[in-house]
């Protein structure tokens, strides 16, 4: 059989063209813009070398954003995965209501970030918010605490809300991974007298490495790109305390510094690619090992 004839190239031509024009082309243009002088006041686009990058790195705003981005990506990845895996294991048992529970835990995933942001803003409101009302049972001073308005807690709140919203997605991918594992392995292990923990460690974990890999990669990449949950909850404030890379890119745009915004985006891209390939390599090795 002639594969070329059976699976002609035009089958992927159309998406390739769309993808190139609307995804890759802007990416390449962006790299070009980051090396020229281009603002809303001035589109002469003279070559300026690394000036945009140097200016950007000299600004505290950018450095704060970089730090917060990493904090966000690491913490949300770790907790979304731990919680997601725990939920998946619990709901992969034969408890009767598991299907309803799965649906419930997945619900936050399908809600709009904008709406989630609004609801949590209301819940975290000092004096009137539900969370402070619950906490005030334990400590009377808790009622007026402003979780999102305090620079020491705002970033943590954003991270918590993201975990709340994203853990269900990890759960589903872990569930998928768990369902592939044959029951016989566990039966054999229990005959050998293995405890639940040892069979989890020596059977489940190694066999769900593909799920772990995809979950971690997705969480990290999305964590590094985070934008909308920040916008919906704090807008980067108070001050600069919840700025991340994407929101700094946004504020460069707001002030008309288009080149600098592009440069920041290039830095983000490089960052994401490096992290992605490093992790990918790590997981590939893990999969081979098992």
């Amino acid at each position, binding site marked *: 059989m002639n594969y070329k004839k059976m699976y002609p190239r035009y089958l992927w031509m159309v998406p390739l063209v769309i993808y190139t024009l609307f995804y890759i082309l802007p990416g390449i243009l962006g790299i070009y813009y980051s090396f020229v002088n281009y603002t809303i006041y001035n589109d002469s686009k003279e070559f300026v070398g690394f000036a945009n990058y140097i200016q950007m790195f000299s600004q505290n705003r950018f450095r704060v954003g970089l730090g917060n981005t990493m904090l966000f990506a690491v913490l949300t990845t770790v907790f979304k995965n731990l919680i997601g895996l725990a939920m998946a294991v619990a709901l992969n048992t034969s408890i009767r209501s598991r299907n309803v529970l799965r649906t419930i835990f997945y619900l936050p995933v399908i809600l709009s970030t904008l709406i989630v942001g609004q609801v949590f803003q*209301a819940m975290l409101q000092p004096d009137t918010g539900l969370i402070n009302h619950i906490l005030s049972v334990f400590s009377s001073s808790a009622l007026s605490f402003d979780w999102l308005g305090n620079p020491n807690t705002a970033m943590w709140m954003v991270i918590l809300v993201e975990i709340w919203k994203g853990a269900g997605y990890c759960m589903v991918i872990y569930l998928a991974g768990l369902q592939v594992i044959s029951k016989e392995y566990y039966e054999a292990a229990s005959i050998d007298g293995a405890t639940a923990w040892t069979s989890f460690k020596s059977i489940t974990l190694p066999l769900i490495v593909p799920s772990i890999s995809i979950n971690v990669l997705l969480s990290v990449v999305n964590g590094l790109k985070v934008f909308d949950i920040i916008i919906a909850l704090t807008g980067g404030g108070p001050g600069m305390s919840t700025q991340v890379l994407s929101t700094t890119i946004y504020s460069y745009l707001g002030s008309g510094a288009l080149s600098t915004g592009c440069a920041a985006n290039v830095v983000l891209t490089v960052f994401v690619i490096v992290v992605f390939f490093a992790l990918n390599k790590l997981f590939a090795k893990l999969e081979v090992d098992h």
Partner: protein
Amino acid sequence: MKAQKIKRTVLAVFMWLLSLIVLIPLLLIIINAFKSSAEADVMTLKLPEVWQFANFAVAVAESNIFRTFLNSVLITGVSVFASSILGTMAGYSLSRNRDKINRKVYSYFLLGLVVPVQVIALIQVLQKFRMMDSYAGIIFVYIAMFVPLSVFLAYSFVSSVPRELDEAAVMDGATPLQLFFHIIRPMLTPVIVTSFITQFVFIWNDFQYPLYLLSSSSKWTIVLGVYKFIGQFGSDWNIVCAYILLSSLPVILVYLMGQKYIISGMVAGAVKG
């Protein structure tokens, strides 16, 4: 066996308790959507004294929810449909014929799963194509964003579909397109549904790109409508909640309908690959 049963019950109770963390914020929206404005000032889980069904009528009357709903349906529907079909077709052909060029093309597609969108340049590109503030522009952007995911999911899943099917069909004189649409596509349903739902949820809920790419509010999507609505009715939290409920219904329905495929699609597409 009895110990097993007790264990299971304890686990179930525990999981139900845990589910409260998810349910309470959602209940909060639902309950407050039925309260009066004064009651909703302090958002608590207390049931409304009188159930105000009129809130929904206000939300509908005071917004152009139908217009934004239709915009959302159009933008989400076309993008999701096109990108899942086009992407699946591409993933399938790339997977079946893994020659040198196709392997390169596949890796090229995968870049899109990782690289962030360059918004500034994207706007410039759309400007050049005269597609700013048009349905076509944003739809193409969404297709471009999600084709990589569809390609990726289909690529690995297609391996599990026996090649003999293809060969038999070709023997019967099927063209490549007939082969794909009549023989392969039905086999790929779990993957298509999975990528369909993932994309539907994202695009329906997205507010970043409509804001960037659609400047006239007559083309705004329903989620942007929420934002506009909050601006207007910020102090009437009950109406806002009613509007939020209405705007979230479609996505919840789509999810519930496609739910049974999601896990099998994930098993097939993501986990084995």
